[in-house]
């Protein structure tokens, strides 16, 4: 029952990678199956969970009315927080977010923001005074390897199903109605994280593989295939060629992830509407 370090067999894994195949049979650029659940938390304005292999993350969105930032007086506010809760991994300690958790939240924030996910002007209620503040809270519930890509997917998925109350401004009064409306989602940024082991670049590492990853490159792309956020992590380095190869992976695989996201959403949406229409 004692926790022991993962008995990672470096030679075995590298040998396998040299043949272009991984211990679980995947190609180097292949994700494990991805499973979405939408609106799992009824007290949130929106929520989604994503599973990729053992990785299990949950994102909840809460909307509240507050003040805009002075330099964007007619735009809503997005705040991304992340909790690496200790039941997700023996490496996650109880306490305030550490540098890993803060880095993740800040990278997801930049991906959503520069990826143009949400129409911020649509979140303005009274310019300079009142706007919607969206709290995006990331909960990592099980650490199975690829946290960035899973939380990026769960975050945009949660925003896609987020509904905020309709508000009416009467004079200087704000009336919050019972009725709710969805956010205006403008784009679907997704993250692809490229992991370097020796000379190999691979996607979606297992926990075992992750132990050997020397450097990682997280790249967000939008639906136009533009790059909208990049973060290199871990104490390793990339060659110029590896970076350019990563850009191509981020674009092609980003497209793939985006279509899985949209398909999952559409299936869910159809079921919900079906249920509402009594089908």
């Amino acid at each position, binding site marked *: 029952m004692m926790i022991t370090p993962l008995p990672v067999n470096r030679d075995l894994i590298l040998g396998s990678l040299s043949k272009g195949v991984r211990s679980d049979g995947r190609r180097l650029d292949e994700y494990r199956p991805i499973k979405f659940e939408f609106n*799992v938390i009824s007290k949130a304005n929106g929520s989604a969970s994503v599973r990729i292999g053992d990785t299990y993350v949950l994102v*909840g969105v809460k909307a509240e009315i507050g003040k805009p930032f002075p330099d964007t007086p007619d735009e809503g506010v997005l705040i991304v927080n992340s909790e690496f809760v200790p039941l*997700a991994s023996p490496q996650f300690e109880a306490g305030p977010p550490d540098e890993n958790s803060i880095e993740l939240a800040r990278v997801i924030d930049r991906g959503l923001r520069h990826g143009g996910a949400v129409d911020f002007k649509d979140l303005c209620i009274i310019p300079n005074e009142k706007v919607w503040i969206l709290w995006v809270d990331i909960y990592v*519930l099980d650490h199975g390897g690829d946290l960035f890509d899973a939380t990026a997917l769960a975050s945009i998925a949660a925003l896609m199903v987020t509904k905020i109350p309709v508000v009416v401004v009467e004079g200087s009064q704000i009336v919050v109605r019972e009725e709710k409306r969805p956010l205006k989602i403008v784009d679907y940024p997704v993250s692809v994280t490229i992991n370097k082991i020796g000379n190999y670049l691979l996607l979606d590492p297992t926990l075992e593989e992750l132990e050997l990853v020397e450097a990682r490159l997280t790249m967000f792309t939008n639906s136009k295939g533009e790059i909208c956020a990049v973060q290199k992590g871990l104490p390793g380095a990339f060659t110029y060629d590896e970076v350019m190869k990563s850009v191509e992976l981020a674009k092609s695989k980003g497209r793939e992830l985006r279509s899985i996201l949209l398909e999952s959403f559409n299936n869910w949406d159809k079921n919900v509407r079906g249920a509402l229409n009594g089908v």
Partner: protein
Amino acid sequence: MSGKKRLIDENGLRVDGRRWNELRPLKIEVGILSNVDGSARIIQGKTHILVGVYGPRESFAKHVSLPDRSVVRCRYRMAPFSVEERKSPAPSRREIELSKVIREALEPAILVEEFPRTIIDIFIEVLEADGGTRCASITAASVALADAGIPMKDLVAACAVGKADGKLIVDLSDMEDKYGEADVPVAIMPNKNIITLLQMDGTLTSDEFNALLQLAMKGCKRIHEVQRKALKDGFGEIKNLVLEE
């Protein structure tokens, strides 16, 4: 507990349509997490909680461990999105108190003497809170401890009872908890029939208190059946269930 809202209608039914002695639907899943030694998920009404258990494991911080027994630690936390108004992630005084009472409700069941100099860590994450989170946490944590293979004298099953609109009720929802006249969370070791959690908020005569305690113990026993089913099959469930009077 101002009792302003009507919580029991003219037919004796509660806001969610239940009878006074009716439990909410309850699901328990076991072994749902990959990196812990034991885990469980509980969904009781809309209350939704994950529990993960590590241990017995060696203590990194020597000053925490004891020479003659395992030290049990427990952390109960609510996710920011689990409640009506977003909760700050910083631990509240309520969370600190609940971590303590939950731990003290579970400890009597754990054979801590078998693992001196070790630590058992219980991590409770409330993903959605709709009343009865401390009881659901205990119910699920006890299953997660068993899933971790930690030797126990008994499971611990928990159930809240209380009073609303002058009536005694079982398995309180959020609204009943907030606006009712009393809330009594209870946990028992069902085979030994002893009480390991007992709190009360509100006002009750000693007769009412007595009746509620007996009702709670009945509820705990039905919940215990679900725990056992879940440990046997990986999943246990009841739909709405009316306790015998």
